[in-house]
């Protein structure tokens, strides 16, 4: 039985004629930060809502510890919806205590935990203020506290970094890292790819309702055809090489894409034979490039 693993297994969802999710599958393991990226409308929010039981799937299932997620296991998930939601006229402390209780904590535990997270997230001065009176940044902190206050076993956060100032981004990153190292599987979606790249253990790229690529950032970056960056006065020599394609040329610098089985050393020899080589390196695409690549290819095939 997979311990501490959140599995999304072949989940599909249609809204009338529109297919929102098509066989969406991935898993998030204990102690892992999983970044969920994809363009708007790719199906990230729908997936998370289905995981939380807020929406029902047409087919497929969500499992936690190998068992289908039901209301009792769902209570153990911490959730931050894309559309932030708190009672605007309720005080910060009351709100967190209430949410903790609704997630199954006793009143005493709820109070202790709410106070604890209020202190952790620097909201102590604001604990008896109505949420609507807080700044946007502080409201975001309360929202995070709302997801964490019942000490969840799983964290599902939809765009937790959007609208945060750099300090809050650091606080959020730190909290997520900490939760993950405590063995909690954490999945979050984001458009800030550099952040995802830096923070996540694994990344899943979603397009048109399916997972098109997933793995560690390194795996993803080293996937695909190898590319070389070569700086030499001419590129005429490349024409004589089989399986080498110039995909970008910028002055004396060019990017080459090698077909399977082409030896990069052979390429270097050919380049040196043609003239001086000032730079010769393996180019690894950034997550942003990968993402763009995946999304545009998918877009063309669709």
């Amino acid at each position, binding site marked *: 039985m997979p311990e501490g693993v959140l599995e999304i297994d072949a989940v599909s969802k249609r809204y009338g004629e529109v297919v929102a999710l098509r066989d969406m599958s991935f898993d998030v393991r204990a102690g892992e930060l999983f970044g969920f990226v994809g363009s708007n409308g790719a199906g990230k929010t729908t997936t998370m809502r289905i995981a939380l039981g807020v929406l029902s799937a047409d087919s497929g299932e969500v499992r936690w510890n190998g068992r289908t997620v039901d209301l*009792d296991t769902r209570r153990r998930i911490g*959730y931050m919806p894309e559309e932030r939601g708190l*009672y*605007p006229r309720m005080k910060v402390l009351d709100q967190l205590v209430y949410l903790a209780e*609704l997630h199954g904590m006793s009143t005493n535990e709820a109070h202790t935990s709410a106070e604890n997270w209020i202190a952790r997230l620097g909201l102590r001065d604001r604990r008896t203020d109505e949420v609507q009176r807080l700044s946007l940044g502080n409201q975001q902190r309360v929202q995070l506290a709302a997801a964490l206050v019942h000490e969840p076993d799983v964290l599902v956060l939809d765009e937790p970094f959007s609208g945060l100032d750099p300090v809050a981004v650091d606080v959020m990153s730190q909290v997520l890292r900490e939760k993950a190292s405590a063995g909690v599987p954490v999945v979050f979606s984001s458009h800030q790819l550099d952040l995802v790249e830096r923070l996540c253990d694994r990344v899943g790229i979603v397009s048109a309702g399916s997972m098109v690529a997933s793995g560690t950032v390194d795996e993803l970056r080293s996937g695909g055809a190898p590319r070389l960056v070569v700086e030499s006065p001419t590129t005429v020599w490349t024409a004589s090489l089989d399986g080498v394609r110039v995909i970008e040329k910028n002055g004396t610098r060019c990017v080459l894409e090698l077909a399977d089985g082409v030896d990069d050393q052979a390429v270097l020899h050919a380049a040196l034979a043609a003239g001086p080589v000032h730079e010769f390196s393996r180019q690894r695409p950034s997550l942003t490039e990968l993402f763009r690549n995946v999304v545009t290819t998918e877009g063309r095939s669709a």
Partner: protein
Amino acid sequence: MTSARAVSLVARREFVTKVRTRSFLIGTAVIIAVLAGYVVLQSVLFDDQQRSVVGLSGQATQLADPLREKAKAFGIDLETRDVTTAGDAEQEVRDGSLDALVTGAPPELKMIVKGSGDEVLTTALNDVLRQQVLTAQLAEAGINPQEVAQSLANAKVDVTALEPVDPQQGQRLAIGLIVAALLYYSLLVYGTMVAQGVVEEKSSRVVEILLATVRPWQLLLGKVIGLGAVGLLQLLVISTVGLGLSSAFDVVDVGAVGGAALLTGVLWYLLGFFLYATVFAAAASLVSRQEELQSVLTPISMTIIVAFVAGINLMIGSPSGPTVTVLSMLPPFAPILMPGRMALGVAPAWQVLLAVALALLAIAAITWLGGKVYANAVLRTGARVKLREALKL
């Protein structure tokens, strides 16, 4: 976590949040103030109407005692005052501090009033005068005036009523109307409050977090119970204060009628609230913003308003007429009309029981249907959800 715990947590939040708001405290205080003002005004008007001050001058002063007694028999509280200067007294009549001034010697009396004379007072004075003349002449004729008075008193018509009028009829009607009005107010105000709560959760999107941990029906039921309890609390506070004031100022004889009306009022409030609140909540779940709320609530509010206005008119006219009788047993109208008819004492037990049974059936059906609409619509933000779509699945 059990369903009961989830529902009670939601209900507790609704109750505590609402009771703490300034609008609830001020609203209740205003209603009580209005009620108290009304009761005090009533009792003052009551007193005023029934008290007359009459000035007696010269030989007319000897009429003071018989006049007061006569007036009492006619149901007016008469105060007499001996005046020495007729001129000053006339001025007092002009000012209004005296209702009338009586001068002259029997049997030739004069009464001076400001505008039109009080008819009852005039009749009383005439009676006293005739009595005196009669007594004097009887004495002259050698007949004992007391014996004549005795036989006169015995000569009267014995009235047999085929449909005796309840001596408390007026009071019952007043209490019936007040109960109906209070229920009308509570259902409308607290029903709307439930609707606003649903939209608040929907527009602030907090409902998405809530529904990740509780089921839609638990959230709906908790909300209805919590706000229903606030309404009940307010109803009880208002009624208790109202009944207390009324009995303190002797406006209505509270006693059994008031107590029974309070009990039936509470029963019908609960039935009516559960019936309407779920409908209010389901309707509210169709829209995403407070501004759109009015459009979906209007048909429901109209039903309550029509039930109240038409019902009250019919009830005052003929509380046992066939229209009111049938309407008062049908679920949408029963919560307002039946308690009114019960306070009037014109609803037989079988009608009350039938109305309660029908209301309970309607509540079961409405809760099921409303719960379904709510569950389907509450997470769909944006454009107004069509009722037909919400009823699917």
